[in-house]
């Protein structure tokens, strides 16, 4: 409890929480919040600088950038969360199995982890996007195929520490079924560390998507993902800095927010730091 009190008094933690909550609220109510229809084109309004009418200016097609960023929060949140879920869905079971069963299973899983860890994320993602032809689900695959390894390594080492503690060993000795042990005793004890890790890495796919967009292999521009917006706006960086800067800043704020929250949660949930 004392820890949570410290959390509330920590300005960084509060800022991080507010940013993350704010993002989710914006994503849910996006159409209601956006001042203009995000796809409304007024060709005569190309590249209007920020003004009270358009706080973040307009883009190449005369669309309101703020409105597009607000709508784009949905796809951004979706990329971050779904990629995270995919990574967790692969990484956590493998980590649990490796740590719990040890021996040959552990060896095979860890070799597999080594193999996938050895690919630079962006390059393998580029290869997948290039050969598969792109699209949302290929993007998720491309951004998860190497990143699940951090989950499996983390969970495995946590399980190894836990299984050395008495209570798990005794339950094992009592003959409880393995699955039950894993789900009733081990997994719950891994949850805090998983949450901390998830908060710290949830924004990584968002950044990676912006790099892929820059190279022409991200999400298509009309989805108004922030990465795609910044990437297409970069051609006008000198004439219309706002068309690349605001989407870039939006990404930066989210990465910042999730990291601040993650750091603060670590203080609370993971006493070893």
């Amino acid at each position, binding site marked *: 409890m004392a820890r949570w009190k410290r959390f509330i008094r920590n300005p960084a933690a509060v800022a991080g929480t507010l940013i993350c909550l704010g993002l989710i609220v914006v994503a849910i109510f996006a159409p209601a919040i956006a001042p203009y229809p995000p796809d409304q*084109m007024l060709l005569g309004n190309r590249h209007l600088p920020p003004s009270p009418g358009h706080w973040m200016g307009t883009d190449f097609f005369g669309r309101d950038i703020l409105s597009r960023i607000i709508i784009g929060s949905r796809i951004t949140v979706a990329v971050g969360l779904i990629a995270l879920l995919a990574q967790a869905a692969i990484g956590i079971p493998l980590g649990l199995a490796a740590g719990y069963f040890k021996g040959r299973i552990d060896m095979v899983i860890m070799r597999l982890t080594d193999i996938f860890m050895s690919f630079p994320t962006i390059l393998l993602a580029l290869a997948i996007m290039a050969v598969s032809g*792109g699209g949302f689900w290929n993007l998720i695959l491309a951004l998860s195929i190497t990143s699940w390894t951090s989950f499996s390594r983390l969970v495995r080492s946590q399980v190894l520490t836990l299984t050395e503690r008495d209570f798990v060993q005794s339950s094992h000795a009592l003959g409880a079924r393995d699955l039950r042990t894993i789900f009733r005793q081990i997994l719950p004890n891994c949850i805090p560390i998983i949450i901390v890790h998830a908060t710290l890495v949830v924004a990584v796919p968002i950044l990676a998507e912006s790099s892929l967009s820059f190279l022409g292999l991200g999400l298509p*521009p*009309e989805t108004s993902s922030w990465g795609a917006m910044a990437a297409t706006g970069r*051609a006008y960086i000198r004439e219309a800095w706002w068309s690349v800067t605001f989407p870039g800043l939006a990404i930066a704020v989210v990465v910042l927010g999730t990291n601040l929250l993650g750091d603060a949660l670590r203080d609370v949930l993971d006493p070893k730091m």
Partner: protein
Amino acid sequence: MHTRQHLARLVIGIWSIALVMLSVATAQEGANAQPSGEIRIAIPTEPVNLDPRLGTDSNSQYVQELVYSSLLRIGGNLEPVPDLAESWENPAPERYIFHLREGVEFHDGVEVTAEDVKYTFDTLRDPEFGSSFAANYNAVQEINVIDDYTVEFVLDSPFAPFLYYMNPGIVPRHLAEDEGHNLQSEPVGSGPFEMTEWRRGESVTLEANVDYFEGAPRVERIVLVPIPETTVRLLELETGNVDMAIGIPNENIQAIRENPELAIAEGGAAAFHVMAFQNERAPFDDPLVRRALVHAIDKEGIVEHVYYGLFPPAHTPIVPTSWAHDSTVSQYDYDPERARELLEEAGVDPEELSITLHTWNRDAEVQIATIMQNQLEQIGIDASVSVKEFAAFRDDINSGNYDILIMGFGRQTDPDSHLYTHFHSNQVPPAGVNRWRFSNERVDELLEQARVEVDQEVRKEMYQEIQQIIASDVPYTPLQYTTIFLAYNADLQNVTYPTYLRLFDLAKNAYWAE
């Protein structure tokens, strides 16, 4: 009085002659001067393959143009002009005889002979060799070396566009057959420049060929530097680290024109974009619907917005520089009211029409598609855009799996090269690239006749009739004719506008102001 006038005329006359002679002499001196100076040219991406038979991307072609000579090259008005072949004869419709210049040498000092010509075209048309130009030589039956400087091409049947396909660079047979030499990365030709160094990813260095048969270039060295990011390419030009840049974004043209230290050369055989319908898919199988949708899009507005009004809107697939261009074809004004009327006439309710615009991930294509989507929505159609990576996009359109597509086409030469493969009903993929699945008996007939007709005036009439039919049936509608822009340092003199060959004339003629 009379005498005085005569005398004055005489004096002026003599002076004029003297001045003309003087200027000729100095010009001559200029042309014969030792090449000097260096032009650094920023290109978008590094070349892929420098063998003129294999490398088809424009970045590779910039190098190939300068290093290789061809039998004939494509001139400024898209007509074949002499290059290595001084002259040619056409004794029968199926026979062409080329007479080569004598004494022309490859950069390694070996003379260019008819054997090299035969070898180049024999490999080009051999499917095993794998050139993407092979289909251009389907009509060639055999190639005969008559003597060192005479070569004969025998065709199966008359093929009117034949001379237009005599433009690939002639490769040296002795090096091409040498296992130890890779022409794909070490090109050796007989053109105005010799490639001396290729630092992968960094630069391609070309040195002037002082023995070039049309006279030595004015500059000593051309260095091509790949700079992918357009903002950076332009910055390098402005800061003077490069002297010329290819691939300038349209939005920057105005700023460059206003910059006294920079200049712009515009030209090059026009390319164009089209909005095409899947002509077999309802309701686009009805010409009324196609016409209606062309009325629904604001071609001029799109061109104005995407290309900043730099290019004229297009109405026919044959570019204005071509002899076969027909400027009288029907045009469709932007008229949403008319679009609705035509749709009604065709029995189609726009509110119930749902259209996907298919395109691929290049800026211009995406921008055009996005604006069109917006304009179609304004007449009540539910329109969306699908942007894919090129290979996936092509799979879709080749299998006819689309409603409307937006794509661009490159430079064209003879009218046959675009029209036959894109409009003959036997050219529906995979046989050809009639992706709109257009089928019109009259067009088929005209295309076949125009291919074998040798009289250009008669051919011109045939192609004009084809253009009329395409414009009224609208299997597709062209959007605009684009040319290329080169931005360069204003101290460079004698920069000629790019023609079909983009860098060739320019590299030969340009020089630095003293």
